[in-house]
């Protein structure tokens, strides 16, 4: 029998569930993650911001440093240079990437898989590479220097071309995603309502692209605004904020002004971050996850135009890559163009020799190993462990910050924070540990989001069932969550490795003689006018990235085939 017993006062004491050992351990892990973000991210940023408001002796001076900075006539020139370069590059990149994305998704031109693959090549390269290749192509002694009609490559022209190459795949991926989510039924409805092709483009395609174009322009703008690799190679005497910051700190040891420039670099990224957040909010409601994929109708004229356009773009991308490879093989450009591997004999040009490349491998390996473990387990703690909701929310927000934080700003803030004599963690300064830490933090957001997405797709009841069967969460994590998410974990590891190989921004402030990495070595070689070895080192980086991506692809396929029985259909 079931009886409704007489009601008991509902004002009894508030119930608190007793902690099991496992709960305590999970809570400690969460606190450890919070401490990691505090030390690796929040405190350094805080130090940087406060440095910007202090004089050399540490007295608070408000915005005086900013006033001093802008009262230098040179300073506003630098600022406007950066702005002009960024706007121009963004417009060009968006136009090219937008058309390219349209061709990939809305035409039936042949070779779409090939064109897509070529478009992603710049993701494998350090941003130093396009600059070096451009010098071979259009520099003062370049093969096609006439193509610039007397303009010098060094300066805005070179920077913009390099940045367009470098940011093209980023913009392309974002715009392409927004085009792929257009529901085919919208086109069918438009056709049924007798809208012409042009009207359909303006009423269906373009509105759907709007968010993608917006997001892509924010991403491109901040990338260009904060990029160091392209201007340091082809900037010439045209200063932008990133190179100015480098010179102030490394050349002039002017940390106060360095902090000011760092904060200036941070501003557009911060604005983009907030704007992106707001846009995303309005967006989520209108997206239907079950959109029917659009299949373009036949149209020879359109397909031919798309093919021509994509061929030109792909050719441009490939020639930059091929030029870098060739450049690394010329015996003595531009006098002796016979091919040899002498440029790869790094010890002749640089005291660290191949050591820089080995350091890069070590760094990338460690970032991939520790970073993947940290990011994935961190995302698990945030997504699938109940309780401590305010702490989890705060951590979740902090995990998004690195996306908005330019690498150079992070590197600079690490100098301020870890180089301070009173910092107990100061010991890592000058070691590879600080490079690993800064790179993990710098790259944190994207893999974090990847991990969250994968974890959200798991059945919410898995851990509950495990607990009801008296199996600890840690065991269920190891026996179920990790195996199921293995493809994602692999993807994260490969992302971290590849980006650690190609990154330069934060590391340029943090390396020491013993921990010089390949990208830093490229900068130094280029500074010393050793273009061949610089190209060789860049090519080495690209080759390594490509190998890792290939390896990941092979592993993924092997893995998916082996686990196909239980994964069912999955890409």
């Amino acid at each position, binding site marked *: 029998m079931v009886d409704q017993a007489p009601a008991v006062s509902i004002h009894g004491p*508030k*119930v*608190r569930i007793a902690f099991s050992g496992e709960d305590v351990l999970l809570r400690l892990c969460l606190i450890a993650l919070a401490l990691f973000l505090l030390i690796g991210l929040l405190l350094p940023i805080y130090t940087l911001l406060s440095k910007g408001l202090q004089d050399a002796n540490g007295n608070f001076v408000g915005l005086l440093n900013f006033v001093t900075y802008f009262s230098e006539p040179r300073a506003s020139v630098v600022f406007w240079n950066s702005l002009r370069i960024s706007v121009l590059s963004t417009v060009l990149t968006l136009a090219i990437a937008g058309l390219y994305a349209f061709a990939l998704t809305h035409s039936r031109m042949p070779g779409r898989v090939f064109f897509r693959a070529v478009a992603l090549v710049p993701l494998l390269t350090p941003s130093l590479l396009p600059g070096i290749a451009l010098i071979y192509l259009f520099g003062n002694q370049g093969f096609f220097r006439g193509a610039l009609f007397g303009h010098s490559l060094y300066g805005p022209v070179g920077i913009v071309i390099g940045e367009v190459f470098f940011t093209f795949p980023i913009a392309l991926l974002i715009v392409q995603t927004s085009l792929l989510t257009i529901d085919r039924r919208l086109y069918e409805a438009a056709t049924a309502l007798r809208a012409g092709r042009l009207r359909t483009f303006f009423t269906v395609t373009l509105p759907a692209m709007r968010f993608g174009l917006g997001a892509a322009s924010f991403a491109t703008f901040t990338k260009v605004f904060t990029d160091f690799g392209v201007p340091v190679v082809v900037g010439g005497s045209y200063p932008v904020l990133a190179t100015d910051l480098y010179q102030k700190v490394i050349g002039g040891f002017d940390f106060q002004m360095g902090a000011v420039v760092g904060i200036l670099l941070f501003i557009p990224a911060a604005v983009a971050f907030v704007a992106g957040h707001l846009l995303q909010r309005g967006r989520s409601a209108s997206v239907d996850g079950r959109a029917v994929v659009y299949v373009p109708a036949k149209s020879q004229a359109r397909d031919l135009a798309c093919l021509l356009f994509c061929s030109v773009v792909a050719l441009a991308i490939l020639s930059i890559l091929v030029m870098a490879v060739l450049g690394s093989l010329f015996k003595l450009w531009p006098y002796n163009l016979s091919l040899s591997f002498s440029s790869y004999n790094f010890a002749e040009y640089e005291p660290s020799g191949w050591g820089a490349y080995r350091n890069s491998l070590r760094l990338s390996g460690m970032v991939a190993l520790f970073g993947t473990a940290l990011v994935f387990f961190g995302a698990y703690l945030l997504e699938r462990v109940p309780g401590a909701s305010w702490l989890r929310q705060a951590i979740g927000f902090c995990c998004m910050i690195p996306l908005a934080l330019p690498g150079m700003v992070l590197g600079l803030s690490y100098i301020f924070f870890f180089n301070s004599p009173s910092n107990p963690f100061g010991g890592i300064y000058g070691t590879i540990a600080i490079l690993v830490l800064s790179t993990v933090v710098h790259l944190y957001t994207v893999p974090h989001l990847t991990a969250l997405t994968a974890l959200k797709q798991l059945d*919410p*009841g898995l851990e509950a069932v495990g607990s*009801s069967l008296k199996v600890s969460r840690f065991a269920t994590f190891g026996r179920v969550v990790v195996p199921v998410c293995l493809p994602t974990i692999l993807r994260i590891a490969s992302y971290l490795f590849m980006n650690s190989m190609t990154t330069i921004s934060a590391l340029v402030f943090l390396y020491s003689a013993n921990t010089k990495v390949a990208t830093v070595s490229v900068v130094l070689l280029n500074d010393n006018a050793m273009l061949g070895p610089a190209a060789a080192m860049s090519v080495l980086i690209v080759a390594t990235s490509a190998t890792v991506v290939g390896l990941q692809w092979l592993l993924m396929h092997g893995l998916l085939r082996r686990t196909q029985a239980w*994964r069912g259909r999955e890409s």
Partner: protein
Amino acid sequence: MLNVPDGIAKLSPPKPMTDDGGTPALRIRGLSKSFGGFMALEGIDLDIEQGEFVCFLGPSGCGKTTLLRAIAGLDPQNRGTIHQGGRDISRLPVTRRDFGIVFQSYALFPNLTVERNVAYGLHGARLSREQRKARVGELLAMVGLESQAAKYPAQLSGGQQQRVALARALAPSPGLLLLDEPLSALDAQVRLHLRDQLRRLQRCLGVTTIMVTHDQDEALATADQIVVMNQGVIEQVGTPEEVFERPASPFVAGFLGDMNFIPAVAASRNSVSVGTTQLDVADMKDVSPGDEVKLCIRPADIVVEGPSGGPPTGLEAVVETISFRGNFYRLSVNCHRIGQGLDVEITRGAWERLAIDAGSVVIIGMPASKLIAFNVA
């Protein structure tokens, strides 16, 4: 499909009945739970006896799943106590409670075979490898899936997955089985079949079971006791017959099965005046003469006769629409004396005998024993 071999009862004996029902399997007192400012559960008191099959029934958002999750410790209550077999489990973490659970999505471990899914909870128990294997084999036999042991969940049908989830939950012989809409994700045919099998299995094992459902047919067909919930409170607890025949509130009356609601005024302790007529009512709930009431009668309980036949207390009504529903006909009739339309169900036999068309005049009778009046105030 589900079959229960003779040996099964020996291996998972029903928990011994406590002496005289003094300690119920589950005793809930003063349980409340809020999410932000929203009261999801308010002052829940409930006893569940050993071996019972109880359904929490209600519309979505009524708090039935919240209550189940509080019992499991997955979303602990803010206030109130839960005792299981006399032991206070109010503050225990999930791992130290004694229950098995099946979710609507089943939450099977996709990377483990059926066999290893079922064995998942047996590793902590002190069983040898052989004992564990034997136990898994016996559970799979019980749910009729021996031949699927080596397959992965993605290779099974929905109904098979559901049975794996059930076997997994029952593997450690829990004292309480919690089912959160376990049949909702299945096709109608499979669902009917499985719900009977589930019921039979539960009878046989004698495990105290709570099933959350929004499907009244499912609750009526399976439960020993139905707990009808609405807006975070329990509206009524009773056997399926009790909640269907004698609903305790207008909500319960309207939620289970079809019901006509007629506004009326109490004329005496056992009659109401409605429209221009008076009706005798057997069941008047907290009603004094003069109160406004809601009069309830099920469409199938209204008696219909031809214009000449009719009971002496019958009322004239005009048939407006007729719809064929398979085993019966649903008429909507307008009764002038009552002043509103009513839904009526008649059997096919009655339909053939009366030869009704739209526009026909019939005599309807509303037996006092089938009428219930609820106080509106």
